[in-house]
């Protein structure tokens, strides 16, 4: 993956993750805020309920007190003091008092809790009100279950005593806490309020009092109601349909829970807000990613262009184009890098020139040394021969003639030797360019081995082994030059084994070409000899010109091949030549093919 693509992905991911993180954070904060608002609203509604509860309680207390202060109450109290009550005389008093004081419920009760008269249930006279004894001292409004002929209802009631008689007399008056009561609460539009009348152990939807109409989720809050009254503490639950319900147990005078206030709030605004935020976040993320891709593309291009130019320049340098330079477009690190690169290539060029020059000088010196060495050997016999001729001339003409004939042969031989030396130097300088043809390297190996068959026998115990790979393909090469190179290597190998040894010729298929290997078990080479082995005019032999391996390397190089040597002193040497197929260098077939085409 390119650096630019990595940069693009990095920027896009950064933008996406940034938006996602911000969105998550906003949603999280929104949820907490909503829950806080929801709790605050629920608390406000509870407070409002309690205020309304107190306000109505005060109103009821005033009315009940007024009823307790009437002549009727005094009459009943006095009658009660005179003995066993005559219920006939009181039976409708509670009803009349309740009607006058606009109370829905009113009961007149003696100290034992016996109902003397009841407005809401006239038939209950004479029965005990078990609720009274526990609440006698309570002056505050009380929430309790009121037994009516049709069943129990939730009631807000107040107890007041009538103190005019000899025996205590109490009045319990109040009104129902019903849908009308709930309707008096100022409930926000997205909230609901209901009461659960806790008069049965088992949850019953019939005991739910809603502000209006039915309670649509009655069955769903049964668990909430059970939890609240079981633990005697507030509880909450989130229902399907995006509602949160809070259950607040309402305490009675005796520690019981006569009712549970239920406050529901819709999560719809929160969900809509969250949906909105999510939509905006998706849009922002999409836009961010697109913009990130665009901007990061521009940035990446500006960042990577110098790097790409450097990479291209480095590739050029690796291919040998040391003149490559990159433009310096900025003054930052990349600009410094480009300048350094340019300086590096300039320095490389300079050093190469110096190296070439140094090598050239060294080559000339070596050439001079070799020439001096090569030419000194024939010159010395020439000098001796000429001096013999001069001495013979001075001694006697007869002797001169004999010496002259003998010296002339020597002189001619040495001159011939000099010509031969000069010819080899000239030959090296005139190395031809390869003439590429399809070539079977195995056949070539066999021909070279056959050529030196006689010398193998002369040198005694040189055993030639051939390990030729039949699967090697034909390659394009100059058969004469390659034959010459291989012959040089074989000749060197024979020279390295004066006492005999083992010569192994190997071919092997290689990816895109072939590998040829000439291995001997001769004296081997030192590391210094290995390093200078292919240097022209360098030789480790007494009578070599030092051009053989230089010619071999030149031929291999002209075939775009590579030659390496592995050798240690006393362990022989192995020359490996790798040659490419070079099929693209084949000359096209002459037009004779088309001439033979029918037609």
């Amino acid at each position, binding site marked *: 993956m390119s650096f630019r693509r990595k940069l693009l992905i990095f920027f896009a991911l950064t933008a996406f993750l940034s938006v996602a993180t911000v969105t998550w954070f906003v949603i999280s904060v929104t949820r907490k805020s909503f829950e806080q608002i929801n709790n605050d609203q629920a608390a406000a509604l509870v407070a409002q309920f309690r205020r309304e509860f107190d306000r109505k309680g005060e109103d009821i207390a005033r009315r009940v007190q007024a009823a307790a202060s009437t002549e009727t109450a005094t009459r009943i109290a006095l009658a009660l003091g005179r003995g066993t009550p005559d*219920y006939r005389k009181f*039976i409708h008093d509670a009803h009349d008092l309740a009607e006058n004081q606009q109370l829905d419920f009113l009961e007149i009760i003696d100290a034992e809790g016996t109902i003397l008269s009841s407005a809401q249930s006239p038939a209950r006279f004479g029965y005990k009100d078990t609720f009274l004894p526990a609440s006698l001292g309570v002056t505050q409004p009380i929430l309790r279950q009121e037994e009516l*002929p049709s069943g129990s209802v939730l009631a807000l009631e107040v107890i007041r005593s009538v103190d005019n008689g000899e025996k205590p007399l109490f009045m319990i008056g109040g009104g129902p806490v019903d849908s009308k009561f709930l309707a008096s609460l100022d409930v926000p539009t997205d909230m609901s309020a209901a009461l659960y009348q806790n008069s049965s152990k088992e949850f019953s939807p019939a005991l739910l009092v809603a502000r209006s109409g039915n309670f649509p989720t009655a069955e769903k809050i049964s668990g909430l109601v059970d939890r609240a009254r079981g633990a005697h503490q507030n509880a909450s639950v989130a229902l399907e349909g995006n509602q949160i319900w809070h259950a607040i147990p309402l305490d009675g005078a005796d520690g019981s829970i006569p009712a549970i206030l239920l406050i529901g709030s819709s999560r719809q605004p929160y969900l809509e807000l969250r949906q909105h935020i999510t939509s905006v976040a998706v849009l922002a993320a999409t836009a961010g990613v697109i913009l990130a891709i665009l901007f990061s593309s521009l940035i990446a291009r500006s960042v990577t262009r110098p790097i790409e130019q450097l990479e291209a320049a480095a590739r050029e340098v690796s291919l040998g184009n040391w003149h490559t330079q990159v433009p310096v477009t900025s003054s930052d690190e990349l600009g410094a890098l480009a300048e350094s690169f340019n300086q590096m290539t300039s320095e490389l060029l300079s050093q190469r020139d110096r190296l070439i020059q140094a090598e050239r000088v060294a080559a000339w010196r070596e050439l001079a040394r070799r020439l001096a060495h090569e030419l000194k050997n024939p010159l010395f016999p020439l000098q001796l021969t000429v001096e013999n001729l001069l001495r013979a001339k001075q001694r006697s003409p007869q002797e001169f003639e004999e010496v002259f004939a003998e010296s002339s042969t020597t002189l001619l031989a040495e001159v011939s030797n000099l010509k031969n030396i000069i010819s080899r130097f000239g030959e090296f300088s005139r190395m031809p360019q390869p003439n590429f043809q399809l070539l079977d390297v195995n056949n070539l190996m066999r021909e070279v081995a056959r050529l030196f068959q006689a010398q193998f026998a002369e040198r005694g115990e040189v055993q030639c082994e051939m390990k030729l790979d039949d699967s090697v393909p034909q390659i394009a090469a100059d058969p004469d030059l390659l034959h010459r190179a291989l012959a040089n290597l074989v000749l060197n190998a024979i020279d390295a084994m004066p006492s005999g040894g083992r010569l192994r010729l190997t071919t092997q298929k290689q990816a895109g070409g072939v590998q040829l290997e000439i291995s001997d078990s001769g004296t081997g080479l030192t590391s210094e000899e290995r390093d200078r082995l292919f240097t022209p005019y360098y030789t480790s032999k007494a009578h070599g010109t030092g051009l053989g391996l230089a010619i071999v390397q030149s031929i291999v190089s002209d075939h775009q091949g590579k030659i390496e040597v592995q050798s240690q002193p006393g362990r022989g040497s192995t020359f490996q030549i790798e040659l490419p197929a070079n099929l693209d260098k084949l000359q096209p077939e002459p037009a004779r093919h088309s001439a033979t085409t029918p037609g």
Partner: protein
Amino acid sequence: MRRIGLALLVMAVSPAWTHSANAAVRPRYGGTLRVAIQAAPLSIDPNDSVQANSVSLPSVSRLIFETLVVIDEHGEPQPWLASSWQAEPGNQRWQFSIPRGVTFSDGSPLTPDTVAASLRSANPKWKIFPAADAVMIECEVADPFLPAELAQTRYGIAKRDQPLRGTGPFAIKEWSPGKKLILIARDDYWSGRAFVDSVEIELGKAARDQMIALDVGKLDLSEVSPETASVANDRHIERSLPVQWVGLVFAPAEARLREALGLSIDRATINNVLLRGSGEVTGSFLPEWMSGYSFLFPVSRNLDRARQLTSETRASGAWSLSFDSSDPLLRLIAERIVLNAKDAGLSLQLSNASSADITLVRLMPASTEPHIALGNLLARLGFPAPTFENASPSALYAAEKAALESQRVLPLFHLRSTVALGAALRDLQQTDSGVWRLDNVWLWAGTP
């Protein structure tokens, strides 16, 4: 004139019919009698079944419609529109003589044909044949009490051509169903014109509102219910004999639980407190004053026994107890019964359903003649019509005992009918069954 004389004679010998306010003052003609009742009928046809359980409606009905026979203070049938009657042997076929000279409010004469048509409408089972001056009635079975039966309000003679017309002392002037009825006195009434010129009857008025209207002088006569009895104490009150039957009717249920319920109900307390003593505790269909043997069906509360019966029987849930929700008195009694039953471990639930387990009913006997009254009550309670071999009390007792032993009903009370009189109202007479004789009242014009 013979009939008028007979009627006057009946009234003269009956203490119950002569509650004269001031006998020394001479009655005067004129004025409008203002009456209010709680019932709000949509029809004033005497044949309408709504009238059966009301005291007030028969009182109003008889101002317009008259019967062939009336029952006197001894419970004996007496001629009224019919001048006489006689039965053929076997008491299955009867002949009632229709006199001449009686007219309907539109002036048309009362004839055997109109009588036959009216009676056929009241009882399609009878075969009725008009004759020259008589009407022949042939019953399905022998009926020795047919004359007394014809004294029931439902057999009031009416011409049912719209508007309804009767032979009574008043004619209909204005009729707003369920709201108001205005009657005017007929000058041509065959038995002599009524003293008041007209009667205005307000329908569907609550008892407390009636009492208030009476106090402010807007009424001359109001009903008194037990809940208004306390405020009516200082007024002129007239009470009937206890005639209305109040009891429980059971759907099929466990007999021992029914017995437990009967033993749990504190009838005496209900009567004393809720009914203000206006009734009589009873264990029978017919009141003591009518049958003479009601004491033979004792009633007493035995809560321990009731609890024992309840504990011995596995009750299957709560019983539903229904009643006429428009009747506040029945509501009170029903609520108390629920509480009493709870004391015995029985669970009753008040209900408005028509198919309740138990129904609390209040029935007005159609007649003060005991055989007719019992037969009528039993028929309305779903019992088969009793057959009486003769008119003896033992036959009556046997029929009533058989019905009670079926345990399908539980008698509770016999209630009196009570009215409060305005200061100007004079000479209000009331039959034993509580029916007012408004045709004879007059209004005093002086300062009360």
